[in-house]
């Protein structure tokens, strides 16, 4: 709350709330579930799987769900006629840093009911595995690949979980993690060296190479030697 009677300087001072929550996620007080029909329905259907509910940014309802049952909950959200969240707008992850769990965030939208919902699942840093929802929404295919690429979260049941934005032989880790430095882990020289010495096999998946007539090649590995085809006899 901005103190109107004080000076502008005080208002700036009073502005934000600090996040001192040890579990990592800045939690507002539990929101009023009756503001969003889905939340009440979710809580009655799934009971304790729905860990927490809050309202962010004024009117955005966020539901925290047990990561082990995410597919079940999302399937219900997609299929139940009262909910019908048929558009998966986004799948992303948030790393708060400092050892806090990584949150997987699903943005859902119902085209018919014109409602939005945010579903979050928390994963501990030593257990970054969660079920994939590609069977529910094809949208999740590339979105989950990106989360894997940039955060290192494994999605079980994903048909094609490999890097999407970084090169296949990228060996520096998962860039959007908080412990990953902005300029990468290798020196610029090493990054240039690795970039320029990519084996052309890295460019193609084994299936594509089968088609192209060069079957039986192993999938790309990170620490490839820098020999090229012409160096071989």
């Amino acid at each position, binding site marked *: 709350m901005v103190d109107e009677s004080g000076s502008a300087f005080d208002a*700036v001072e009073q502005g*934000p709330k600090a996040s001192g929550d040890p579990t990592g996620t*800045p939690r507002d007080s539990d929101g009023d579930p009756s503001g969003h029909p889905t939340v009440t329905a979710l809580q009655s259907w799934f009971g304790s799987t729905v860990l927490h509910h809050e309202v962010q940014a*004024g009117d955005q309802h966020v539901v925290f769900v047990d990561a082990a049952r995410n597919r079940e909950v999302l399937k219900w959200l997609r299929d139940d006629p009262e909910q019908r969240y048929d558009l998966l707008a986004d799948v992303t992850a948030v790393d708060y840093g400092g050892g806090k769990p990584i949150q997987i965030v699903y943005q859902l939208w119902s*085209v018919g009911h*014109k409602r939005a919902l945010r579903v979050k699942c928390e994963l501990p840093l030593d257990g970054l595995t969660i079920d994939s929802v590609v069977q529910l*929404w094809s949208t999740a295919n590339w979105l989950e690949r990106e989360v894997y690429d940039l955060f290192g979260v494994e999605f079980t049941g994903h048909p094609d979980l490999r890097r999407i*934005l970084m*090169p296949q032989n990228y060996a520096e880790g998962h860039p959007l993690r908080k412990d990953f430095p902005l300029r990468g882990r290798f020196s610029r020289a090493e990054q240039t060296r690795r970039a320029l010495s990519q084996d052309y096999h890295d460019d193609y998946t084994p299936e594509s190479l089968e088609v192209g007539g060069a079957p039986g090649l192993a999938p790309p590995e990170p620490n490839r030697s820098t020999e090229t085809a012409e160096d071989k006899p």
Partner: protein
Amino acid sequence: MTEKILEFPEPAIRSEPMLLNLGPQHPATHGVLRLICELDGETVLKVTPDIGFLHSSFEKLGEYRTWNQIVPLTDRMDYLAPLIYNCVYVMAVEKLMGLEVTERCKVARVLCMEMDRIFSHLLWLGTTAIDVGAFTPFLYAFQERERIYDLHEAYTGARITTSATRVGGMMADFPDGWTDSLRDFVKTLPKTLDEIESLLTTNGIHLGRTLDIGVISGEDAINCGFTGPNLRASGVDYDLRKDNPYYDYETYDFDVPIGENGDCYDRYLVRMEEMRQSLRILDQALDRLPDGPINVADPRVSLPSKTDCMNDMESMIHHFKLITEGILVPAGDCYFAVEGSKGELGMYVVSDGGEKPVRWRIRPPSFVNLSVIAKLAEGHLVSDLIMINASLDIVLGEIDR
């Protein structure tokens, strides 16, 4: 005489599918996109897009920049419609802060977003026409884009990388005569659109290249995450300006074109009509642009005036803190989506109360739209693949971020 049906023996040649690599450097991929195609002759069996050739780690960079410093980064993602990105980012942050901008700012941002929607569609039109083989619409479209470039430049100083918004308002108010130039543009663009339409819409070659190419049904489209003109061409009436309105879009009088077949031709028609509807919105917005301040006078974000700074110490300190520390955004997260030129453009900002975001996520419409190309192009010819790629209206800057 009996008719002898000529029979040819089965060819002894064994045919195999062929692997063709398109890109990443290729004129028709609209950016550094790599398409790995498995072909049976000319027919596409399977196409796998390979992206990441423009990955500039905007999201990581955003974590090292203060809230207002991120605005110039947003231009460089979708460089075809930079003002839309500028606007949606600050709209997300303002929603998280619970900050209401001034009426003038709202209408100004509507002007900017609709102008850039036309800007983006014009480029799409020019480059798609080139892919079909028509060079003239490219020149016409770019000539019109030059006028929007001039408007950008007169307002922000830059042609493409506008960085026009700030949290709480805009970088500056419109210069004198700017709205008149925009009105002039709104009046004269329909003539050029008519000329281009006369070249393309009933053109046999264009029809042959786009009718029944890359068809996707409405339910498939939603399940695959299509949004924007691509989705509307498949018959689904989903436009964020109508369904989840912001900035009084529900008070503007405009229509949303919906297609029927979900093919490339429908996507073309939907975008052409969208340009005309954007002109309608621009007209109305120009009429209702109110006077008043463009920046909200909220002490959390707004700098005090120079006169105040020079006269009292508190304003000076306020100014100093806002400049050196940056604005502070309360803890929480916010997902804000607008109807961008390519689809649902969403920004997800997560704050822990500091002056830099914890996480800045862009939900890029082209990223999700492109993932569907494998489904759309199966069974079509290679030239159809190019056409489908063009009709999706992708921009690699936002796909790779």
